[in-house]
């Protein structure tokens, strides 16, 4: 069977390829990356020249986290902007009604918008590969890492894309959608820390399972990911070693061992994204949503 490309993806690609925005975007993306690269090289060089017996090439390995974190930040900033203006942009352009009367289900509209945003961002990321590869070829990192890095970028773009889509479905104007999506973003980043903070402030003997909320936090996910790469340990792993079994809950203790946390966290983040997408699809379905002025914001778990 021939796999059919979602028509929205195709159309968005056509439109995007012709607009200057994607070229400027690419330029800006590469420029920021180049800046990060230069700064990193500068710092590494300075470092090496202090102790002249050391080999600069070993240090180039640190290019990777610098470039990767830079990219993660850019992706996290750009994707919600693209998706937040996707559905509300169609509304502003008054093309959305026609789209809804076609055979596309609301969910496939949401999905199409997501995928087209992801392809656009992966296009940027792909363009950064040569620079990234420097850290691998010269720095001697394992290639599988590059693969994992790409996977995390995809995960991140799904997550931030779904937040953007969600806001886009609930707002009439693109600009409010963008603002709202950053608000939700930071709520999701910060909220999972609350239970831990509570436990710490109240001075409980045990954190219990309060750390589990951090599974939904992309910031923690990326922190774990990069900590594993750089130091083969992690903060949460450190927690589970530092605390005895009765200081954290049973599940937390076992999850925090090794890399398990990252995989579970990835699944949780995907689940959250899926929830956002479902809500967006529900909202844009005219036969479900009530008359239109109701605005719902779903907080983080």
């Amino acid at each position, binding site marked *: 069977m021939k796999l*059919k490309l979602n*028509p*929205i993806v*195709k*159309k968005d690609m*056509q*439109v995007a390829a*012709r*607009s200057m925005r994607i070229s400027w975007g690419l330029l800006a993306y590469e420029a920021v990356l180049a800046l990060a690269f230069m700064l990193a090289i500068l710092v590494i060089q300075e470092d090496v020249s202090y102790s002249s017996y050391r080999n600069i090439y070993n240090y180039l390995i640190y290019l990777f986290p610098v470039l990767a974190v830079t990219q993660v930040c850019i992706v996290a900033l750009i994707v919600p902007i693209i998706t937040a203006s996707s559905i509300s942009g169609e509304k502003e*352009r*008054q*093309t959305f*009604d*026609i*789209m*809804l*009367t*076609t*055979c*596309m*289900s609301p969910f496939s509209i949401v999905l199409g918008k997501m995928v087209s945003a992801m392809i656009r961002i992966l296009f940027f990321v792909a363009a950064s590969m040569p620079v990234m590869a420097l850290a691998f070829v010269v720095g001697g990192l394992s290639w599988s890492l590059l693969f994992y890095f790409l996977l995390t970028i995809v995960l991140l773009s799904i997550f931030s894309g779904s937040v953007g889509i969600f806001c886009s479905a609930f707002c009439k104007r693109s600009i409010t959608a963008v603002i709202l999506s950053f608000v939700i973003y930071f709520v999701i980043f910060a909220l999972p820390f609350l239970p831990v903070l509570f436990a710490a402030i109240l001075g409980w003997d045990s954190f219990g399972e309060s750390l589990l909320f951090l599974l939904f936090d992309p910031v923690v996910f990326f922190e774990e990911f990069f900590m594993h790469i750089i130091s083969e340990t992690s903060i949460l792993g450190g927690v589970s070693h530092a605390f005895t079994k009765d200081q954290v809950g049973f599940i937390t203790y076992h999850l925090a061992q090794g890399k398990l946390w990252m995989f579970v966290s990835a699944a949780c983040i995907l689940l959250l994204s899926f929830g956002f997408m479902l809500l967006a699809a529900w909202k844009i379905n*005219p*036969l*479900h*949503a*009530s*008359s239109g002025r109701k605005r719902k914001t779903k907080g983080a778990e």
Partner: protein
Amino acid sequence: MLYIEDLTKNYGTFTAVNQLSLHIPEGDLFGFVGPNGAGKTTTIRIVCGLLRASAGKVRIGGMALEAGKRNRKRLIGYVPDFFGVYDNLKVREYMDFYGSMYGMGHRDIVKLTDDLLELVNLTDKKEFYVDTLSRGMKQRLCVARALLHNPKLLILDEPSSGLDPGARVEMKELLKNLHSMGKTIVISSHILSELSEMCSSIGIMNRGQLVAAGRMEDIMQMLAGGNRIHVCISSDMEPAVRFLKEQAGVMVDSVRENEVLISYDRGDEEICVLIGRMIQSGIVLTGFHREEGSLESLFMQLTGGGDR
């Protein structure tokens, strides 16, 4: 083809459509007329599944609105009153985009696109960007788009708004053409006379209610039964008006410079008698005729001429 039963739509406490019932048989060209805010667009959007009705039923081709959503969507081609197009998309790609949204194969789309563009007279614009087309061309393109998946029911919301007279005629011809091809067409408009030339039946809507509906001939008959008479007088107006007012059954509606508009609800013989009496009493009559059955006056009568 299209059954609407007791359709009601409330916006908060405001009732935009109030217990509207309507039946449009297959192959009809139905005109939907009403002043601004009558609820035409609301009704159409409900039928197209873009708005949820507060109450009532809509059945299209025997299918309820909720059931078999995908199949129902295939039955309808919708041209909204306001619509936009994408920048940076060519006419050909525009059609391709909507065709694939209906799950059509690429080859079918290409073939149909050619036919439809020819039908709406846009063949030479195939490689143009859609946002560079003129308003009328966009409108026709939108009609072509709505026909792409070969719907049985074509719904157009004010297709001639914003078009110049020439383009209006073209649009009208296009719709007549489609009608003769056997499509059921629903078209909304403010302007009755525009519809009267092409529609096979019309419904007049006001304040969310259908005030009159039926075949064009029946509506015309309603007009023919009008009892307004124009009396043109070249003698003094005052005694003439006084005289007319005194006559039994005569209602003087308005007095103009040398014309009196009266309502006289009697047969032809009695009208002759009235004319005779007027002449006898020394009124110089220069004209005496029944009002032309204008749709517009019926429209004003039925809708109270009111915006709300």
